[in-house]
């Protein structure tokens, strides 16, 4: 399974729709402090089924919805869609025949999130399993948060074991 596109709208500072094509090799992301770079990583972890608002630097999950600026009103909805190339057919049934998967997560203020795969509503659990089978997911050690590197080093041995389970 390959990850090919990320589309974000209403998520944190990305109030207007944004499309990031993810191609093979090394894609660099640059920009001044506070412009929204780490928010992109969080949108990826969120669509993969992240459950902890605190790990997304918020107090509650509604904190991921655009809160407004001095010129724009707050929004009530945030949505992130990740596109997967499934030509190798490794996605679990009933999606194994689809060449492309679009996994979407949408949150409405005070109403919680819904998940869809190719337009069909599914549970959070289904999305989490889809990504776990593909050796990734919201808590994958391959998604390294800012300042997280020294956390890994200073973590207790039991917590570091988790990284091995990913490799198993």
């Amino acid at each position, binding site marked *: 399974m390959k990850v090919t596109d990320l589309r974000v709208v209403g998520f944190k500072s990305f109030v207007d729709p944004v499309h990031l094509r993810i191609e093979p090799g090394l894609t660099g992301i640059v920009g001044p402090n506070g412009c929204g770079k780490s928010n992109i990583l969080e949108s990826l972890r969120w669509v993969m089924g992240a459950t902890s608002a605190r790990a997304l630097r918020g107090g509650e999950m509604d904190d991921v919805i655009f809160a407004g600026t001095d010129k724009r009103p707050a929004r009530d909805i945030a949505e992130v869609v990740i596109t997967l190339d499934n030509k190798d057919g490794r996605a679990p049934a009933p999606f194994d025949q689809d060449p492309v998967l679009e996994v979407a997560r949408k949150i409405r203020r005070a109403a919680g999130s819904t998940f869809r795969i190719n337009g069909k509503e599914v549970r959070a659990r289904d999305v989490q399993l889809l990504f776990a089978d593909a050796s990734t997911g919201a808590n994958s050690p391959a998604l390294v948060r800012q300042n997280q590197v020294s956390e890994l080093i200073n973590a207790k041995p039991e917590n570091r074991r988790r990284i091995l389970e990913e*490799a198993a």
Partner: protein
Amino acid sequence: GKERLVAAFETVHGHFRVLFEALFDGGSAELRLTESDDPLGGGLEVYACPPGKKLQSLSLMSGGEQALTASALIFAVFLSNPAPICVLDEVDAPLDDSNVDRYCRLLNEMRQRTETRFIVITHHPITMARMDRLFGVTMAERGVSQLVSVDLSRAEALISADA
């Protein structure tokens, strides 16, 4: 169960040693599974020793040395079971220029050995210059993020002044 975990441990341990020595131009490193009564319990101990120094607990290593050691561990896990996507959010921030260079060389090697797609968030000009493509995030309107595709000279301008 336990056999899978031990097999994974052997593979990660092998990759970790090779990557650590490549990153530090020498030295030695190893992983050890700590014993525990619970067969699936126990933790993962990491021992690492930059060239010429004495083996010490990881917490005594410097900020930059920890960042490189952690990168070697993350990439060792990759080589054992490649993830489709990897995002590195300013992992190069604590590194000096010569270690940024080593980090980039390692990234390049990972690109050649795996199918993983890498997204690298950075402020470092050296790292930017090694990317296959660059995107800039700007806030032309304060508080509103936009994404633009940029070339290297535009990227450097982006980080050196208020976008």
